[in-house]
């Protein structure tokens, strides 16, 4: 493993994109960053601007409005960027897969590097997904 990719894996900064979510996944993502699970020990930080991000976390079902914004956000991100789809809605569409406002799961819109299923996924599952992403 080269020096560059080692530094990249040790310092993943996360930007959180919430689609039309029921907010359960958002709460679980915040749980990862709070004292009990503390993802900062792996160098993972939540950043405010997409220009600083290395990982784009997407949760919630993507409807037609979200679709344009998600593509816009993805184009604004500095490459290389990893995309993680969180929750049943982000991975497959879940409950909303048959809805008329649904515009496809995340991987129909932008390329996805990791899927973390669950409704909502536990913080342990999110950490397991991130570890697999880092070791890929």
């Amino acid at each position, binding site marked *: 493993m080269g*020096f*560059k*990719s080692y*530094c*990249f894996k*040790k*310092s993943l900064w996360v930007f959180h994109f919430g689609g039309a979510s029921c907010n359960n996944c958002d709460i679980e993502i915040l749980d990862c960053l*709070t*004292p009990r699970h*503390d993802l*900062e*020990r792996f*160098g993972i930080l939540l*950043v*405010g*601007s997409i*220009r*600083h991000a*290395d990982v784009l976390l997407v949760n919630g079902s993507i409807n037609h409005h979200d679709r344009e914004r998600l593509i816009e956000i993805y184009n*604004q991100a*500095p*490459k*290389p960027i990893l995309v993680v789809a969180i929750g049943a809605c982000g991975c497959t569409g879940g409950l909303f897969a048959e809805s008329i406002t649904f515009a496809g799961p995340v991987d129909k819109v932008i390329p996805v590097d990791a899927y973390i299923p669950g409704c909502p996924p536990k913080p342990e599952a999110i950490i397991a997904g991130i570890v697999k992403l880092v070791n890929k």
Partner: protein
Amino acid sequence: MAADLFYFLVFPGLLFVGITGGFLSWFDRKVTARVQFRKGPPVLQPFYDFFKLLLVKETILPKHGSPVTFLLAPVFSVFGATMAGVFILLPLFNITTGFRGDLIVVFYLLTIPSFSYIIGALASGNPLAAVGGSREVKLILSYELTFLLVITGIIMKCGQQFEIDSIIKVQQASSPFIGSVSGVLLFVVAIFCIQAKLALVPFDMPEAETEITEGIFIEYSGTAYAFIKLTKYIMLFILPSLIVAVLLGGFRLDGINILWSMLKVLGIVLLLTLIRNTNPRIRIKQAVRFFIIWMNLIAVIALVLITFGY
């Protein structure tokens, strides 16, 4: 010439202040984590962040705005911070004695990073960056006068001497300036000025993450943001060093005193971190009032006490 380049680039210049500042940044994050009952990042985390931004990430230029100014601003901020660091640390490590009036030069050099941030933010053409830039201007207008009063107080205390070297010598001959009433007042004011200069939490409205999403740095990515991070590391080291030099009696570099000198810097960084972790962000209006009225009042009281010899 070669010696000057060595001073600027290696010791006590860019390399030394960058590495020390990186470790201090880790210390800051670790203390923050411990205050919040978290575990905190590994020791080399600031360096991973820096090299990731420098080597891996793409730098995006603004479409509407001036790309050259946008890219030059972080370079100037690193230059200003390093130059100030060299002029503070050369007398502090007793390498050279500096020149006449270097305290004033350091005062001006320390404002270069803030001005570069403003210029870079306004060159990016982003409205949130413009909001951050205007807040940074207001913050500078409020704390610079207070910081100047602190420096005036120090110059008055050591008998009208403008060199950092002679200020340290005066303190080491008798006792550190913080041992008097006026010294304590000046120390309190100086700590708040540093807090605002570093844009740490009670005064972090220029880069409020949750409100204007990093404000002045919103458009920076990749290498340019790496330089801004480097400036932040350097400033986190040299501003506490300046306080140690002018109020706490400077460094002594013999035997066990090295440890004591390091503890002084670490203690000031710890104080800044604890202030940052126990306070909410205030509005820009409150910050201006805090500095213009209260901090200036305390500084003027300190100046009056100095004239009466306390």
